[in-house]
């Protein structure tokens, strides 16, 4: 594998809020998500996984500032804590922060947390996404998958 080296993960962002904004739960995107799931319950499931914190404000909102190199970064974990489903067309507040960055052998483990709230401030969902980035040009770890 021939991978160019590039600046590593920006450890200074640990504990920092990267996104604090509002987004609308787009009905068209819910339909796409339901089609991607492709089952009889896909429409319901889509309302549980409608928004993905690390990319909802664009690839440059989280991936870029963290210094993640997509050639050597894969996703190693994803969690959801549900308080209610998203509703098509609703405006939700979202705060995304870098919960943790851990160095482990030749890897950086980056945990990005997203918290979604409804118009009354009620908690809708918490999610955590764990990314694994090789710090040097090595084969992808089987611990990470995408």
């Amino acid at each position, binding site marked *: 594998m021939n991978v160019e080296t590039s600046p590593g993960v920006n450890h200074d962002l640990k504990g920092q809020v990267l996104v604090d904004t509002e987004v609308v739960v787009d009905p068209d*995107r819910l339909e796409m998500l339901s089609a*991607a799931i492709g089952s*009889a319950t*896909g429409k319901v499931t889509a*309302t549980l996984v409608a928004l993905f914190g690390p990319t909802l404000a*664009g690839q440059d909102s989280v991936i870029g500032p963290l210094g993640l190199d997509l050639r050597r970064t894969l996703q190693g974990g994803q*969690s*959801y804590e549900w308080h209610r489903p998203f509703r098509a067309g609703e405006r939700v507040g979202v705060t995304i922060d870098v919960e943790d960055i851990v160095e482990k052998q030749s890897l950086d483990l980056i945990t990005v947390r997203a918290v979604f709230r409804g118009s009354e401030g009620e908690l809708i969902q918490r999610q955590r996404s764990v990314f694994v980035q090789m710090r040097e040009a090595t084969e992808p770890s089987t611990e990470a998958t*995408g």
Partner: protein
Amino acid sequence: MILTPIPASEVGPISRRSVALFGDAVGDHNPVHFDPEFARRAGLPDTVVHGPLTVALVVDRLVEEFGAERLLNIDVRLRGPVFPGDRLTVEPRAFGEADRGVAVYRANGDEVATAIVILAGDPDQ
């Protein structure tokens, strides 16, 4: 402690169209999911399915079995790549005495994910 059992189920095959739809739906256009040459340069044999899509498909099996209102939490560890065309098997797994969830396998037996699942109605919930 008696936890609600989770039955085995199957997912897929996961099509490239599903991957494309998922990428558009959540705004994840990482080329490792769409560009075979990019994936090969990253040391992978093919593009890989988004980890959160694999998670969504597992969540969907749980929604079908229990209903969305019972799902409180899922914590997934992605352990291996999933490729377009893969058919996945979701099997119940206990994690110690207090937690249970599922393990997810490719058809060749590779374990690609494990997940701890918390349902409403379980003890302590």
